[in-house]
């Protein structure tokens, strides 16, 4: 039996007073009654906190993180556009609003760590280093895509970058990540595995079975719940008896943290702590990162279940805007710098669209390749 | 639900069938596809299969009796089901048929069958040989119920045969229609083919006897055999049911001379050169001897190509000219006759024709011809030379336009170049359907025929 190592639940939000998380977890009409002055206070606290964090990260990393966040945002906007043009088919789950989570967590990784996520995977693939060209071509169903056009939006993979995929069944990637962590420990390395899932996956057996085994066998896996508060159209409150996701870890004696997902540096810091547990003690962690998707669940989601006011309130705390403003305040970014970033991103996204457009469709024989590694020929 | 079993249609020309043998008796369980009875059709003996599962409750037609297509021959139902209604219905149908005149009956049934697909030619309605020959109930009954033949399509004569058996039979040239399957529902299976291959000709008499319940009816003559003369008193006689084949011959022949205006053209042919050529050919290949008749078929086919009007068919509103000569060759059987067809005889050598005629005749005698092998000729040849007949006229086999009656080749003294010499003379008579073949047209055909038979080298000229 492993020793219990329980990090106090929601350490920072509780110590730092009113929490956005607590607020949004309430019923919608309650939230709509939030005192604007109180909200202003909270925003100010967050603001100060991020400024403090900025001091602990080198400038190059900071600007790279901003760049990646902008890249995801513009890439997803382009994806939405391409989807409406019929260039992208099927399901297309956008990451807009949640950029701080992927960028914050993954910026803390080493290249030899492993990452798995759900079907909302464009952002993770981009941050893991899969080129926008390959991601966009995959969305377009072209041979130039990272999965040769056979996986699509939900199934981006990049084995070389240790990105082990976007997975389509809610919670399905959680046992897989547990197995990857099992393998790294089996081999005696100090690699960590990060697995992302939405809060709805927490209700799946796969989540609980995995957390149990991970803590039981001390597996170096970081379970990251991107709590965007809606499983498709069903709010957390309507689907979960105890809606504090991080509290689920208590049942398994696992360390857990609650993190503000609109603050990229808070996310990064929490991930660093979890990674340290993983590398040094082979211990798993559960991070609940409270975030918000600005778009529908997928491109086909009309979004009637949320109010305009709710979305707008979160847009005020748009993680890119907040991070950019704070960098300016610290004198690390100016108009020219931002313009330069936007320019580079635009070029990269345009290039990706062009690449995807021009990439050929998979040839018919691709239908029957990659089914078996050792096909038995007759 | 009880089901009526009707006389099925088992060949393209069949209008009635003789129930030669019941394979099940009343009270037997039957299932779909199982053989119920052997039916003697106009050309072959085939099996009628059950189209329903249950118990054979009632047999309505005794063995040996002939009924038209669609006539109810039995009833299949549940063991305890009340079928009296169906039995009454069936017997009422039969009784009605007995009473009514064929003409009335036809009128009555006409509207119902107006759109029924029909293989029947109009001529076939013109008379019924059976009624002429046999003063029993079968005759009048035949007609009304034959009209119901339009909905008697259910008995489609479909063979049940396993794939491997079908393939083996095709390879071995075995006609599946002549086999009785030993598998479930009479399915012809591999071992049936193996048995047939092994038995070869030994298997044939069996088939034949089944097909031929009246073996005394051995004569081809279409007239009922007269009773044997007793010493005194009323002449004793013996009465036999008309076999289906006999009935078909009878019915078809009255559709010939009656509705078709025949003209007959006779000519005499000097056959010496042909006879000589035949002798030479047979010396070359004594294994496969050809007959004079084979030459006649060959030359007739050749001549037909030059005289398309003779190789034709009157179709009421159109005249159909055939583009090849499919020559029917009349073959006498023990109890009838059949006309297997040499297809495209115009393209075949005398030897080929000879082999084909022998093979077809052999199978015709064993009643193993498939329907497509004895239907659809464009012209026929009938040769009674071997019976010493010097000259005769044949009846056209509709819808063909002509038939050639060939007599015996006879050494005859003739005058040639002022001298009396002996020549082999053969008389042939062409019967022509005057609606499309005029005297001169027929005569021109005969001229060509005569010219070539007298100088068979023309065949290769």
């Amino acid at each position, binding site marked *: 039996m492993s020793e219990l190592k329980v990090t106090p639940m929601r350490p920072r939000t509780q110590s730092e007073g009113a929490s956005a998380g607590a607020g949004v977890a309430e019923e919608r009409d309650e939230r709509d009654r939030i005192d604007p002055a109180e909200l202003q206070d909270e925003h100010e606290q967050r603001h100060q906190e991020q400024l403090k964090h900025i001091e602990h990260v080198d400038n190059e990393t900071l600007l790279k993180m901003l760049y990646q966040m902008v890249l995801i945002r513009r890439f997803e906007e382009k994806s939405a556009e391409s989807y409406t043009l019929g260039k992208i088919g099927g399901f297309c789950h956008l990451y807009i609003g949640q950029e701080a989570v992927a960028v914050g967590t993954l910026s803390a990784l080493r290249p030899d760590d*492993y990452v*798995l996520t759900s079907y909302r995977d464009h952002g993770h693939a981009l941050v893991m280093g899969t080129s926008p060209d390959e991601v966009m071509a995959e969305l377009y169903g072209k041979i130039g*895509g*990272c*999965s*040769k*056009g*056979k*996986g699509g939006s939900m*199934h981006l*993979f*990049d*084995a070389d970058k240790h990105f*082990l*995929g976007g*997975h*389509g*069944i809610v919670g*399905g990637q*959680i*046992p*897989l*990540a*547990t*197995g*990857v*962590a*099992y*393998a*790294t420990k*089996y081999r005696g390395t100090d690699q960590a595995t990060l697995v992302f899932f939405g809060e709805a996956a927490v209700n799946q*057996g*796969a989540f609980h*079975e*995995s957390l*149990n*085994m991970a803590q*039981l*066998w001390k597996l170096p896996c970081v379970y990251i719940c991107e709590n965007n508060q809606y499983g498709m159209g069903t709010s957390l409150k309507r689907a979960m008896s105890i809606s504090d996701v991080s509290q689920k870890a208590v049942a398994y004696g696992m360390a857990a943290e609650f993190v503000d997902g609109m603050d990229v540096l808070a996310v990064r810091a929490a991930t660093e702590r979890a990674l340290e547990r993983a590398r040094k003690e082979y211990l798993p962690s559960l991070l609940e990162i409270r975030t918000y998707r600005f778009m529908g669940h997928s491109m086909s989601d009309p979004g009637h279940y949320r109010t305009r006011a709710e979305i707008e309130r979160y847009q005020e705390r748009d993680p890119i805007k907040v991070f950019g403003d704070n960098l300016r305040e610290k004198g690390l970014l100016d108009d020219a710098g931002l313009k330069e970033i936007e320019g580079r991103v635009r070029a990269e996204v345009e290039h990706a669209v062009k690449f995807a457009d021009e990439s050929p469709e998979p040839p018919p024989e691709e239908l029957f*390749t*990659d*089914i*078996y*590694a*050792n*096909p*038995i020929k*007759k | 639900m009880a089901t009526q079993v009707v006389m099925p249609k088992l060949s393209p020309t069949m209008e009635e069938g003789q129930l030669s043998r019941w394979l099940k008796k009343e009270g037997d369980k039957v299932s779909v596809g199982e053989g119920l009875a052997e039916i003697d059709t106009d050309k072959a003996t085939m099996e009628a299969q059950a189209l329903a599962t249950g118990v054979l409750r009632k047999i309505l037609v005794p063995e040996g009796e002939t009924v038209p297509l669609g006539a109810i021959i039995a009833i299949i139902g549940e063991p305890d089901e009340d079928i009296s209604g169906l039995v009454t219905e069936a017997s009422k149908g039969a009784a009605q048929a007995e009473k009514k005149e064929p003409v009335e009956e036809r009128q009555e049934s006409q509207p119902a069958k107006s759109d029924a697909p029909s293989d029947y030619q109009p001529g076939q309605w013109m008379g019924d040989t059976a009624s002429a020959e046999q003063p029993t109930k079968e005759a009048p009954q035949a007609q009304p119920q034959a009209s119901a033949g339009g909905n008697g399509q259910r008995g489609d004569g479909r063979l049940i045969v*396993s*794939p*491997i*058996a*079908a*393939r083996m039979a095709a390879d071995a040239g075995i006609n599946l229609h002549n086999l009785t399957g*030993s*598998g*479930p529902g009479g399915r012809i*299976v*591999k*071992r049936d083919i193996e048995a047939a291959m092994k038995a070869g000709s030994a298997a044939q008499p069996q088939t034949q006897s089944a097909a031929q319940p009246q073996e005394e009816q051995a004569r081809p003559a279409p007239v009922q055999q007269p009773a044997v003369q007793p010493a005194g008193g009323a002449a004793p006689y013996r009465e036999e049911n008309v076999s289906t084949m006999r009935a078909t011959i009878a019915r078809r022949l009255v559709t010939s001379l009656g509705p078709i205006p025949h003209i007959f053209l006779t000519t005499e042919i000097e056959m010496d050169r042909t006879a000589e050529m035949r002798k030479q050919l047979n010396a070359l290949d004594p294994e496969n001897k050809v007959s004079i008749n084979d030459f006649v078929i060959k030359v007739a086919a050749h001549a037909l190509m030059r005289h398309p009007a003779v190789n034709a068919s009157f179709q009421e509103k159109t005249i159909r000219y055939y583009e090849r000569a499919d020559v029917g060759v009349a073959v006498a059987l023990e109890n009838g006759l059949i006309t297997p067809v040499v297809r495209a005889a115009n393209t075949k050598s005398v030897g080929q024709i000879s082999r084909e005629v022998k093979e077809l005749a052999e199978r015709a005698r064993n009643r193993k011809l498939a329907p497509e092998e004895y239907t659809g000729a464009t012209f026929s040849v009938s040769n009674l030379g071997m019976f010493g007949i010097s000259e005769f006229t044949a009846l056209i086999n509709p819808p063909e336009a002509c038939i050639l009656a060939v007599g015996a080749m006879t050494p005859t003294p003739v005058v040639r170049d002022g001298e009396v010499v002996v020549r082999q003379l053969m008389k042939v008579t062409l019967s022509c359907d005057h609606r499309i073949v005029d005297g001169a047209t027929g005569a021109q055909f005969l001229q060509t025929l005569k010219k070539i038979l007298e100088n068979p080298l023309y065949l290769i000229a």
Partner: protein
Amino acid sequence: MREALNQAMREEMRRDEGVFLMGEEVAAYQGAYKVSKGLLEEFGDKRVVDSPITELGFAGLGVGAAMVGLRPIIEFMTFNFSILATDQIINSAAKMRYMSGGQFKIPIVFRGPNGSAFQVSSQHSQALESWYAHFPGLKVVMPSTPADAKGLLKSAIRDNDPVIFLEQERMYGNKGEVPDEEDFLVPLGVADVKREGTDCTVVARSMTVPLALKAAEELEKQGVSVEVIDPRTIRPLDIETIVNSVKKTNRVVIAEESHAFCGVGAELSAQIMEHAFDYLDAPVKRLSGADAPMPYAKNLERLALPDVERIVKAVREVSYLD
């Protein structure tokens, strides 16, 4: 049989450090059916791992470990419990390679007893081969002899694709010669003619193979020569060997303990029809488990499964002997 399976795992674990065994009661308890007896002692608890009763979880864990190069053997105490893990087997293991455009190999074996046991009723007596064989991306193996069990399991462990390895509880005690060589492998996808014959082909697998062989002996006395074919691998299926046999015998009986409906027998029938239609002398005859959940009562259980007598009868039927 259980010893043969044990040897196969032992040899492969010695041969490759990446092979590990995980499942319920595989280690300390020595395996619910003693198939993993002695492995914990030899390889330690890192490589022979008792899992919690959490089939979905450890099946998925195995797939994840396979994605990064280990060769897990995941034991289901019985395949009845694999039903809980089908999401990971079908959605993850079977499709990972394809969805990623060939970036991953999934060298994993899911093994355990499949099909009926003795009087354990409906939830513990199910033959699931057709479920798994349905999906491209999986391989499905069903050995019927100890030697095949060993050779096939070794091949399965060395294979780079997910293999569903279906054993049979009723057969664990079966005896047979088993080669000792380290490299004794039975290739996947190759059927075996267990007995040659000329009159009728019986395609049997797993527990129906010994039944078919007994039936063949019985039928020989009756003058019927039966060929018994064991496909051994359901997917990929060696249809060629079966078709060649059918071309020779013209008749087929398929004996299986699974349900007939949408079963492997149905697939075999279809393929035989597609490839050997012209050679059939009788419709393909399936002799399958009853179309009912498995009953507990001994007499009913016996009725629900194919037996020697029924195989004999089926062969006679397609040979038109009754």
